[in-house]
């Protein structure tokens, strides 16, 4: 739209956007980072050096990277078979499997963490089932509060991302490349190794880098499943800043973490760029039916895969829903009644209903902020013709490179004190949520904008439409579906956000995910499950909105 409207006011809007990001993001971030490299106002790199010399923090660093790497490998192992099925076969439930790939973005991680506790925990469903079946005196399964528990939860939470990206990469491979290889005498294994795999590499690398980045910065799952012994950098920053009030050390860790995640992000963007290079064939891929007469192998494979996904993915979530209706082994709606009716919960320092209200309010406000911001940056990326556009675009998407806890910390330190005194207010949380979600708005809206053929507007104008009418009647209707999808996305991200919120919230401004965490920490499993149940419901509605709108966009 840079071209759409005169010459002057895009510049004005541009200045406004930069000013907003400067005040809400760059300035606070600078405040935090300054704490990490200075001693009483002098640039000494003291806290940074202290952190890098301390074996304790180096161990945390090592643990963070190790668990992220293992989680990524497991997520790839779990996600790639699904991608193969999606890309090459047709079967009942194919569309559903494809839609599920947005789950990690929509479903709050805290509900997955709670689900893992209820499903795999010492007195969880799996252990109780095994004890009853095998007559064991003790719970046989001990996965929680260990590296393996964290890795398992991360892998399952993020495998759908792998499935989505790799399936897209797989579909992009021209099937005649493999046919050409066959006609040149290559057997199936050589075809896969020499043709398919290299062409798949960018999507494997992209999804791997993305999952690594996400698990490297994972907060709620590690917070809950890591117990007292395991902490990632993200959790450590939270502890340092909110519990120990050691700002310099926390800031130094933020600096280290940001630099590391920038590297991974760069890798992801490079690999994602490589995706576009894959040559699309003339012929679309014909997805073959999986269940053919001789297809028992395919059937077995699919069933085994579905069973694995169902047990390990749906099990924890179902546990949350089941336990939300159970108190002392009996079916009851008491937990939900308390959620609505309890005036004050000692575990939350406020009424449970307040958390629901806060979440919905924050979702609405932060979406209203993220949407125009994302739309502007997306259209700048697509249409802008400023020299150095790439660099400016990177600058405009910088919050992507900073962890959620760090965004919370920045706002806490930069805007929490005078003159704004935003610490603990809903406004500060809304700001954080908007900063964290608008890059996703950009990514959602951008393909829609890029798909607008400039010739359409030219055609409209040659038919007598003014530029304004062309925008209203041609461009806007075409991007409205992607705008609505982006809105649902931003809303879901805000409602599920835990990390930045944990940094900023106080009793009274806490949200649903925080309430789940507090109730879980107090081992109030019934109320925690009920709160998580409401959270899952909101996420599910967002999922339906995103999925439905996304499909309409494709359908026509």
């Amino acid at each position, binding site marked *: 739209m840079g071209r759409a409207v005169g010459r002057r006011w895009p510049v004005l809007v541009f200045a406004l956007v930069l000013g907003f990001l400067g005040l809400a993001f760059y300035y606070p971030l600078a405040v935090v980072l300054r704490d990490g490299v200075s001693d009483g106002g002098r640039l000494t790199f003291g806290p940074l050096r202290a952190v890098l010399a301390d074996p304790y923090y180096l161990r945390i660093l090592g643990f963070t990277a190790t668990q992220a790497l293992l989680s990524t490998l497991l997520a790839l192992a779990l996600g790639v078979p699904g991608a193969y099925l999606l890309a090459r076969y047709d079967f009942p439930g194919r569309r559903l499997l494809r839609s599920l790939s947005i789950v990690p973005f929509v479903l709050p991680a805290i509900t997955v963490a709670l689900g893992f506790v209820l499903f795999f925990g010492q007195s969880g469903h799996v252990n109780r089932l095994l004890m009853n079946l095998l007559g064991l005196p003790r719970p046989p399964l001990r996965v929680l509060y260990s590296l393996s528990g964290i890795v398992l939860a991360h892998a399952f939470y993020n495998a759908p991302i792998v499935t989505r990206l790799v399936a897209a990469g797989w579909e992009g491979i*021209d099937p*005649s*490349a493999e*046919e*050409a*290889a*066959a*006609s*040149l*005498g*290559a*057997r199936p294994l050589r075809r896969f190794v*020499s*043709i398919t795999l*290299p*062409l798949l590499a960018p999507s494997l690398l992209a999804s791997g880098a993305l999952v690594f980045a996400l698990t490297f910065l994972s907060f709620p799952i590690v917070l809950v499943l890591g117990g007292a012994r395991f902490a990632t950098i993200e959790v450590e920053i939270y502890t340092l800043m909110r519990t120990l009030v050691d700002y310099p050390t926390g800031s130094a860790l933020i600096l280290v973490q940001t630099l590391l995640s920038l590297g991974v992000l760069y890798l992801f963007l490079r690999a994602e760029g490589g995706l576009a*290079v*894959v*040559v699309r*064939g*003339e*012929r679309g891929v014909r997805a073959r039916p999986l269940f053919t007469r*001789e297809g028992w192998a395919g059937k077995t494979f699919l069933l085994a895969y579905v069973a694995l996904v169902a047990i390990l993915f749906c099990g924890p979530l179902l546990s949350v829903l089941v336990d939300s209706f159970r108190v002392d082994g009996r079916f009851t709606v008491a937990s939900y009644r308390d959620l609505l009716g309890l005036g004050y919960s000692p575990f939350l320092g406020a009424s449970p209903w307040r958390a629901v209200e806060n979440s919905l309010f924050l979702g609405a406000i932060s979406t209203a902020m993220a949407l125009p911001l994302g739309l502007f940056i997306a259209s700048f990326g697509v249409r802008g013709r400023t020299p150095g556009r790439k660099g400016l675009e990177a600058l405009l998407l910088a919050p992507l490179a900073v962890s959620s806890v760090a965004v919370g910390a920045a706002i806490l330190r930069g805007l929490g004190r005078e003159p704004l005194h935003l610490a603990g207010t809903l406004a500060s949380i809304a700001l954080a949520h908007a900063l964290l979600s608008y890059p996703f708005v950009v990514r959602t809206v951008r393909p829609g904008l890029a798909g607008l053929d400039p010739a359409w507007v030219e055609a409209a104008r040659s038919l007598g439409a003014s530029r304004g009418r062309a925008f209203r009647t041609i461009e806007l209707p075409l991007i409205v579906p992607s705008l609505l999808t982006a809105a649902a996305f931003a809303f879901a991200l805000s409602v599920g956000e835990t990390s930045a919120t944990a940094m900023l919230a106080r009793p009274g401004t806490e949200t649903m995910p925080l309430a789940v965490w507090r109730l879980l920490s107090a081992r109030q499993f019934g109320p925690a499950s009920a709160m998580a149940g409401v959270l899952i419901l909101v996420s599910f509605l967002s999922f339906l909105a995103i999925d439905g709108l996304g499909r309409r966009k494709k359908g026509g």
Partner: protein
Amino acid sequence: MATLRLREVEKSFGTVRVLRGVDLDVPAGKLLALVGPSGCGKTTTLRLIAGFDRPDRGEIEVDGQSLLGCRPEERGIGFVFQGYALFPHLSVFRNVAYGLRFLSRAEREARVRELVALVGLTGLDRRRSAELSAGQRQRVALARALAPRPRLLLLDEPLSALDVPLRETLRGEVRRIQQELALSTVYVTHDQGEALSVSDRVAVMNEGRIEQEGSPRDVYERPRTPFVASSVGRSNRLDGQVVRVEGETIWTRVGGAEIPVPDGQLELAAGDGVLLFVKEEHVRVVAEGRGLFVARVVSSDYHGDAVTVHLEAPVGRLRAWVPTKEADRLRRGERVGVDLPQERISAFPVGQEENPPVHRPPSASASDAGRRRRARRRRGS
């Protein structure tokens, strides 16, 4: 040099019957052009020969040996794809070398050099396909398919993505290379000009069947079905009725005129409906008072060396293809005579259009063998 034979090949995708009994022969060392409208089954036929899809019924043989039990990689058939399907992550050299893994390193390099030179790409062997022009990609695709010395070459609309002058150059090169190697080749195209000029044999395909197979000249000048008569070359179609049969000549009435057509093998009697086709270049514009009937010049389209003259005639609208220097004397609205040379008219009984002829009666033994082979394959997989 190998011969290719297809017998009663049938193929459906879901409920769509794409091939309805295809018979085809490619003599050793010859180039057969498979031509027809899009969706007629040309590409499917090619993919079945290459082994990318399996026929539901029928037999495909090379040198008398069935291919149906062989996987694509075992067939030794070169394939040039419409979109070229170059491996985007490999250089030109490695694309061409892909099918040569059983050669020693030195032999492989020599063979690649030889082919790169054959298609005129010397010096470009380090490039990737993204760094090549469309014409260069086409040449790489050809070199890659030829490198392993296939016994048969299949080309699927190899030139359709190129612009006209380049297409004509490359068409000549493909033909030259094919003849130099004496390689039995099937060349699929929807461009009939390309089909006629590049081939030894032409097969016209329509709705999953071969309508006619013969030399280019045969197919152009002696169409055997209404579809071939109407789709090959620029034809006028006339609907008429048989008036009387006089020895070798059948007199037909079309609109307000009587037109004599050769008897051929038509079994027609007075009163039968008849379909006539006459190519535009055979519609002779003569002086008024001569020829079969009088017509009026409605308009003309200028093509440089020739002009399409649109005529209003008692038989309906007619188009005539007239060399420009002869057309100069024609004025719009002018009355002229029109002659249709008897031997240039193709006549078909009405009703044949709906039922294209079945070429050969099915032979039980061939299809039984095919069925046995398929059953064996199914057990094997």
